[in-house]
């Protein structure tokens, strides 16, 4: 337990929550202390990395702000962050979506 107290002082994320997320993966039985510490620390690095990359690569630099579309763009264009594309779909305008939906329905009607 004292090891966790020590880890808490050095990391700005709650370790117990990280453990919970790890354990929600299938087939994970137990995780040793090093693994937990490393994962938590890596997560800090990941947040920094993702935020800054997205800020620099997206519209962020001109607008001086980080938006959802900056993140989506980075996920699509960066190999490292490509695993995020499923959860970061690029947002499309409603009218464009409805248009493509209409087109799909027209194609179906051709059968």
């Amino acid at each position, binding site marked *: 337990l*004292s090891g966790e*107290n*020590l*880890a808490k*002082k*050095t*990391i*700005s*994320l*709650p370790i*117990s*929550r*990280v*453990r*919970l*997320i*790890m*354990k*929600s*993966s299938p*087939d*994970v*039985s*137990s*995780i*040793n202390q*090093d*693994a*937990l*510490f*490393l*994962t938590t*620390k*890596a*997560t*800090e*690095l*990941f*947040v*920094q*990395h*993702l*935020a*800054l*990359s*997205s*800020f*620099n690569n997206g519209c962020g630099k001109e607008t*001086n*702000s*980080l*938006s*959802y579309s*900056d993140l989506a763009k980075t996920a699509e264009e*960066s190999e*490292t962050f490509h*695993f*995020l594309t499923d*959860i*970061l779909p690029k947002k499309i305008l409603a009218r464009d979506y409805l248009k493509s939906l209409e087109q799909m329905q027209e194609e179906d009607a051709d059968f």
Partner: protein
Amino acid sequence: MDGDSSTTDTSQLGITGEYMASGQYVLQPQDEDGEESMNDHEEGGAKENYREQDIYLPIANVARIMKNAVPQTGKIAKDAKECVQECVSEFISFITSEASERCHQEKRKTINGEDILFAMSTLGFDMYVDPLKLYLQKFREAMKGEKGIAGVPVGEGLTEELTDDFTNPLPAGIITADGQQQNVMVYTTSYQQIPTVQQIQFS
């Protein structure tokens, strides 16, 4: 690390059936987070009704790290914070499944540090590995120091001392997206202080 399984099996609970009143007893895992809600997408989200895939790290912590990573005057949209919150859970699961797979392949049951580092390397986060090894080393040294002091309870004094140790700048290698090695100073944080992460070049 202890398991956090809950059980209603009386034989495991070590009490005979006759002591169980009607209804079920469930042992709740010790949760150090206290009041923090699991899903911080809305304020004060309920802990009770969450799906496994909806477990996130607290948005305040995530937002703080983001804020300190971008230039000082930069702003971060609310949906960007929520988005990164989700990405984080995805990242953790991503690493964990890979590490778990390797663990199983080697017929082991416990995921260890090496599994995690290997997973990161395999999945394209090779640039984190060296800084992480340094952090781990410092962490272990501090732990050893703790054990060496016999008969002294781990109280305020000791943890304060160790906190100072960790808030010193820790030289760590790289982290640039283009793979170039640079020496950057990585400032670790204590849970209460505002992190001051500077000079990490992510381009």
